[in-house]
């Protein structure tokens, strides 16, 4: 009896068994997660770089120096450089609208914000083909009359990309601004600050992390968009071929190594995006 008590005094359970699982269960759960992550997330990631460098570094560079690849990179950059600023303006306006005001139909608006995300990218592309196709589109007569090409050309790809990446900046900003509340904005207003001054000097500095991540994520998605752009582009090599589309072309032509070399660029962009997210979470936790 006494020995039993002593045992309890000198060796208390390491974890609170009331709110923690036994150690073997924890170990098992962590193991399951490890295996799943390795099979589904890590291996695909490693594969990209392994395949890209399989035939050596010079082959890797060659793949990137291919003029068609360069064209694709330039096209992708130019699409993103239009789509991302557009969505930035939209995101800032919408986040201000939703977090600073109460109005009728607000929750409906928030739902609509998610629409481009719920719609299949293929259908997103189809929408703009139906509108702007020179043969089947609604505006085909006008477009033909003025000899404007929207589909199978840069404008269509920009529009489709903008549609697909529309919610990303707004969706990062809204929760960040909601978490901050509106008290500081009210304080600025009582001190006589204008709306713009309040926005730039009080609101923005408080959500700059979320804003930056939103831009980076929006950019990564814009550069990586495949389905929608594929439908509206017509995929003309060297003309309307973005990086993801050219990856597909290369892959279908059995130039696997070149396809993965180009993929590695977008993968690095994705990793950069994740890295930024981690940095912002970290700085946020440190502030608290």
């Amino acid at each position, binding site marked *: 009896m006494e020995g039993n008590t002593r045992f309890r005094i000198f060796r208390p359970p390491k974890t609170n068994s009331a709110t923690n699982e036994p150690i073997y269960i924890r170990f098992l759960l962590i193991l399951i997660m490890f295996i799943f992550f390795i099979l589904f997330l890590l291996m695909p990631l490693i594969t990209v770089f392994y395949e890209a460098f399989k035939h050596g570094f010079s082959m890797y560079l060659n793949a990137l120096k291919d003029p068609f690849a360069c064209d694709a990179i330039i096209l992708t950059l130019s699409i993103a450089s239009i789509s991302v600023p557009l969505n930035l303006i939209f995101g800032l306006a919408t986040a201000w609208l939703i977090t600073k005001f109460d109005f009728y139909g607000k929750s409906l608006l928030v739902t609509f914000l998610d629409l481009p995300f719920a719609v299949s990218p293929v259908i997103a592309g189809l929408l703009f083909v139906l509108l702007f196709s020179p043969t089947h589109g609604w505006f085909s007569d006008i477009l033909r009359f003025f000899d404007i090409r929207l589909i199978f050309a840069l404008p269509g790809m920009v529009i489709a990309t903008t549609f697909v990446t529309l919610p990303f900046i707004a969706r990062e900003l809204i929760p960040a601004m909601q978490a901050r509340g509106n*008290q*500081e904005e*009210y*304080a*600025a*207003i*009582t*001190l*006589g*600050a*204008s709306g713009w*001054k309040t926005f730039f*000097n*009080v609101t923005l*500095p*408080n959500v700059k992390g979320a804003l930056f991540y939103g831009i980076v994520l929006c950019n990564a998605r814009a550069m990586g968009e495949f389905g929608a752009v594929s439908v509206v582009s017509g995929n003309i090599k060297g003309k309307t071929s973005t990086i993801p589309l050219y990856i597909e072309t290369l892959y279908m032509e059995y130039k696997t190594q070149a396809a993965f070399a180009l993929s590695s660029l977008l993968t690095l962009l994705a990793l950069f995006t994740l890295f930024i997210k981690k940095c912002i979470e970290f700085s946020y936790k440190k*502030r608290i």
Partner: protein
Amino acid sequence: MSIQAYNVYKTFGSYKALKGVNLDIPEGKLVSLLGPSGSGKTTLLRILAGLEFPDENKNTQIIFHGEDVTYIPAGKRRIGFVFQHYALFRNMTVAENIAFGLSCKPKRERPSSEEIRYKVNQLIELVQLEGLNNRYPSELSGGQQQRVALARALAVNPRVLLLDEPFGALDAKVRKELRRWLRKFQEDIKITTVFVTHDQEEALELADVVIILNKGEIVQIGSPQEVYDSPASPFVIEFLGNVNKLKGGLNNIPNVIRNTGILYVRPHDVDIQLQVESETDYVLPAIVRHIFSAGNYGRVALESLPQREPFEAEISRNRLRDLDLKPGLKVFVVFRHVRLFENDSVYREIKI
């Protein structure tokens, strides 16, 4: 600057926060809006500030020093508002926070950066935060943040200072210190000041005028002494400090014949006697239940006889020692100052 408000109504959805409020705040006074949570006091303060607008009603008027400001936005009312949780700009230093209002002025009126720096230093001195100019709000204590918020509000030379639960987020000791400091501060600069609080002790100690709200209506306005000594309703008497409520036992009291109504008596108006000393006293037999002798004064928990209603008496520690009470002892209590309320408003006051 004086403030008048007439017929102020405010509804949030179906909830009526303010049901026709009228008030008149004279210049240079320190005024407290006192009430329980949900009484509409913060809404009223925010309406005075222009951070909320009253329901549209052609009789509604808010007047600052003779000027109708009912629909003037907050930024143009020249008010200083101190938020409950201070709402300091987290991305700015103490000095930048205080300078913000000045930098918002239109170009013509904006002081030069030299002048701003001078003014900021002056204010920092005034609120006793010397040396903290370059700290960020997160590096300050609650009391320091409170004073930064005050300095920030004062920087724009407001005509009136509005404070929302100014001491609510501070711990008890800092609260007392800051309360005294604010009192002195307001006396020095003589700015019309309105503050919201749910703490009756704070309102009674600090304010020149106490405005008591309940359920969206003003129930009493007056000096601390007036509202404490002549409460207008059972709500006010119950809200301002401890009070005993006795339903029965009225028959025992001379001059009170009817057995309706509720009798209110503050614990410090109850005296305990071992024998009936005078026939004219309002005397009630009672039994001692508990004695709390720790504290500034002695507290005795009693039960009236024969109705057995519990109530409390507060007597000096000396008197407590002299009486030498024990639980279970039968005593006689004397009510020195009694209020009888019937139907919530009609009442009689009996004073010895």
